[in-house]
């Protein structure tokens, strides 16, 4: 009897802590989305300042180093430590500018957070909807590490950011004999091509 009671209490405590964790993760993504809209998009600051603000929040919230590792797929293991470092730097800069460019198209529709679901170990999916007609489904994949949450993927209408980059880069590398340095060079060139005009 005592054993059963301990088990029930243990299970209750476990489910409570899971609930608390998922609520913490939802709050983390909700706060981020809100901050991005209020502090970055809605401010009247010049575009270069907005980009710096966006970069700061984007780098804080996304685990870009881990995503960069994932997107190289089988080529990550083959790359030298220097190639990996250079690629991660280029990927961080490139993905920040690319998402800032996408974010600029956001028209201020309301985002509603619906809840969370477990993903693999230490990871959760946070479901949200941008209220449009038809509505746009956005799923945030977050990972808990050292009691801190970071986003590892954003899925918009079924399209995963991480998987799209991975498919694209492995295809590029397949055609370029697995030359990671060439991909890094290409990403640096692409980053420079983004223009953020002060008036948009």
């Amino acid at each position, binding site marked *: 009897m005592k054993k059963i009671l301990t088990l029930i209490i243990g299970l209750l405590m476990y489910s409570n802590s899971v609930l608390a964790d998922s609520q913490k993760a939802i709050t983390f993504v909700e706060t981020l989305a809100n901050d991005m809209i209020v502090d970055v998009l809605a401010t009247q600051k010049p575009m270069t300042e907005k980009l710096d603000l966006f970069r700061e929040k984007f780098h804080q919230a996304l685990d870009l180093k881990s995503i960069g590792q994932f997107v190289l797929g089988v080529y990550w293991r083959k790359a030298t430590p220097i190639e990996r470092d250079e690629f991660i730097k280029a990927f961080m800069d490139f993905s920040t500018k690319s998402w800032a460019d996408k974010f600029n198209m956001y028209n201020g529709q309301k985002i509603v957070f619906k809840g969370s679901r477990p993903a693999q170990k230490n990871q959760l999916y946070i479901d949200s909807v941008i209220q449009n007609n038809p509505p746009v489904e956005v799923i945030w*994949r977050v*990972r808990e590490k050292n009691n801190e949450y970071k986003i590892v993927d954003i899925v918009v209408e079924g399209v995963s950011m991480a998987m799209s980059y991975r498919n694209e880069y492995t295809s590029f590398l397949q*055609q370029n004999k697995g030359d990671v340095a060439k991909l890094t060079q290409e990403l640096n060139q692409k980053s420079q091509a983004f223009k953020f005009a002060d008036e948009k």
Partner: protein
Amino acid sequence: MKKHIFLGMLSGIMFLCCSCATKPTQPEQLKIYEETNDPLEPLNRSIFAFNNLVDDTILKPTASGYRAVTTKTMRTGVTNFYDNLSETRNVINGALQANPEKTSNAFKRFMANTFWGFFGLMDVASDMDIPKYDNDFGQTLAVWGWETSDTYLVLPLMGPSNPRDALGTAGNFITPPSVLITMMTPWTAYPLTIGNYVQMRERSIEFLDNLHRSSTDYYATVRSMSRQNRQKVINDALGHTETQTPKQYEFDMDFDDFE
């Protein structure tokens, strides 16, 4: 005559065979090849290049011109008009999928927008909170049992597809609204069809520009994104709920930790 047909078929088969990607033997390359599932990649890339050429030289400039000479309100009216025409397809496919909710909503939307929205120029149905679903013959084939069709195909002028959705595209041509448009006089049918392509392209100018600008391999990006998005549309049509897994985005993400 028979000889000509035979030679034509033979050259067609040879062309397809030459266009097949060679299956790699090295395990890691084989893994990528299987993940990609694009055995006709060389042929698909050629058709993709042709489609882009048509887009760069004709479709995108026409869409930009259309944007230059119209206001946002006018363009919304045009988009509403075409969306309303496509409700007839939504009604038919909703019925073929035995989905009364989707069928009746599409029918209500069509009636409301046609009669109270000046032949569909105004989307009064959305103001009345009648939900909107896009429904096509490819989704119907999935509901009928052809759930998985991953082999990538690029159709001339139509873009990314797969065997099931290619057949679905053919099905869309022989059902309303396409079949009704082809029954009209050429003077009405051609502008109506071309107008639809132009207004659709106008709506995606920024999105596709962004994608093109940021891709290291535009073909691979479009292949990946269109396939994932289509899988979501199919999952929705099949009524797969969030707990029914795995979804296309539910892959393993394992990391070496950086410290």
